[in-house]
């Protein structure tokens, strides 16, 4: 009876598992292998794909553009994830109170969830078009600016990885990630029992204190999961940076995923592309492994 049940289970799982392994796990391993080969499409007809050890990684580390992209990737994660979590948590906190029009406001705040990344990139490129940007128009109207901000092309001012295009794209990444964070945090806030707040209030805690001494500690497990997911997604992020600037100007918005893509499809250097994407795999894989272990223990 048990054996029959196991057989049933394996048969049911098999098709999905085969696909997940063949199109998920195996390509990750194949990508690691590729990064140790010379895999230059231009040279394959004459030289094939000889094993070159760590040469691709050495090439990358010697390339200042790669180092810049690596630093940018991490800086984007810090700024965009930090920004979106702070903002989303505040909004979620406000939206969990009872007030008139709450449902409508929630729908309005979640609207960017509906918009595909390519469309989001398109809208924001258009809103960042210097002469016709509504943002520049407002700043001019308020007398704050006399010349237009060149949101996506200004490379005059930099501070480490920070620059105007860097912040412009961070804003878009925050904008597109906000609905997810709000929804996620609201679900977490709902799980905090009201009695805890009442007790805190009895003890004389003000709303700021309640937030820091009740909400945040109680929300910690949810926040950990949220930040883990956002960090992993952020390290491997591709679309917005690629479509909005292609990594420019002067590499100021370049990130690992964009760089890997360009190695492969502009330079036909799949070895360097694989090596670059493996950096992403290592970074996200470590976080992901810890996360999976945690999730499975909870089950």
């Amino acid at each position, binding site marked *: 009876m048990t054996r029959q049940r196991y057989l049933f289970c394996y048969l049911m799982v098999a098709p999905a598992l085969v696909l997940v392994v063949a199109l998920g796990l195996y390509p990750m391993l194949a990508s690691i292998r590729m990064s140790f080969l010379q895999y230059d499409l231009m040279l394959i007809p004459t030289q094939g794909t000889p094993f070159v050890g760590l040469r691709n990684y050495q090439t990358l580390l010697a390339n200042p553009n790669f180092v810049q992209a690596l630093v940018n990737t991490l800086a984007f994660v810090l700024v965009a994830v930090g920004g979106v979590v702070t903002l989303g948590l505040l909004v979620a906190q406000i939206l969990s109170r009872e007030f008139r029009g709450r449902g409508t406001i929630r729908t309005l705040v*979640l609207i*960017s969830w509906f918009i595909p990344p390519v469309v989001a990139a398109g809208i924001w490129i258009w809103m960042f078009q210097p002469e016709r940007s509504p943002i520049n128009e407002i700043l001019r109207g308020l007398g704050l600016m006399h010349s237009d901000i060149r949101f996506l092309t200004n490379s005059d001012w930099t501070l480490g990885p920070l620059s105007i295009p860097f912040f412009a794209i961070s804003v878009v990444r925050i904008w597109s990630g906000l609905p997810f964070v709000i929804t996620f945090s609201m679900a977490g806030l709902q799980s905090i029992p009201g009695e805890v707040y009442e007790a805190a209030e009895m003890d004389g805690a003000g709303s700021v204190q309640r937030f820091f001494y009740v909400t945040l500690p109680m929300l910690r497990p949810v926040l950990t999961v949220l930040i883990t997911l956002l960090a992993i997604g952020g390290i491997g992020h*591709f679309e917005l940076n690629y*479509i909005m600037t292609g990594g420019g100007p002067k590499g100021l918005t370049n990130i690992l995923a964009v760089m890997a*893509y360009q190695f492969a499809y502009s330079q036909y250097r799949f070895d360097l592309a694989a090596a670059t994407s493996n950096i992403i795999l290592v970074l996200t894989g470590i976080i992901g492994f810890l996360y999976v272990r945690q999730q499975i223990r909870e089950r």
Partner: protein
Amino acid sequence: MAIQTVSKAKIQTAGRTHFRLVRRMSTALVVTFMAGVILFTLFPFYWMLKSSFQTSADITSLPPIWFPTHATIDGYYRAVTLYPVPRYLLNSLFVSSATAALATFLASSAAYVLARHRFPGAVFIMGIVIFTQLIPGITRVFPIYFLIKDLGLINTYAGLILAYLGFSVPYATLLLTGYFTASSPPELEEAALIDGCGHFGAYARVVLPISLPGIVAVGIFTFLGSWNDFLWSSLLLSQGQMKTIQVGLRDFFSEAGNLQRMNSFMAACVIATIPAILLYRFLQRGMVSGLSAGSIKG
């Protein structure tokens, strides 16, 4: 409610005017903050809609015109006539629907046993599923490109669907495992087993039918995942008439980068957003609270 009662009691004990002042200030602060957030989230949406209804002359004018004073559907007309936007939409619709159907079909049986049965290796399999779902696509896109190429499926719908299954199946499995765990009472299957259904019979005749709303919802999530994709389709299906809408939009933008066409580009963007909005509305109406919690966990 309870909190309010407490704070009322507090007003009476604490200095009344001082408390009110603080309260009013913090209310003003909260309202201003929320107004700012709504402006931030909503304004780009407005700007897209507005631009899509402007004439070419209005859209290029300096300074920018904030309202479509000469509202026209010219942009939409050109988006669907000068550029094969309808064709791209159909391509995306087909590829995403096929992916959603196949992925939910494969995922539902796996998710069911992962949620309901204990068997050796189940935890490990679940780990693989979560891990694959978690790790960004860019880490496996290059070998898959060559795999699809070796199969002779570059620039075919089948190739793209196959690639999409790679991230849709783990995603759908994860969502459905959550759904099966949370809903559909085990008593029903036990009854079915006692009535002489086999394990598969209990699944196919009892569990599947009552789980249909959840499966449809997961199908929609999976659909949207493929619908929004740019990375994979830009590599695997980037030529000619078969492009997906996202790749089509991107090419439209880089070809028609000149400003006069911005209204038709924005119109195309609106068109590409409509299916997503319709589906989300449908999800919101429908349902399935257990699932929305699970989908967030993904």
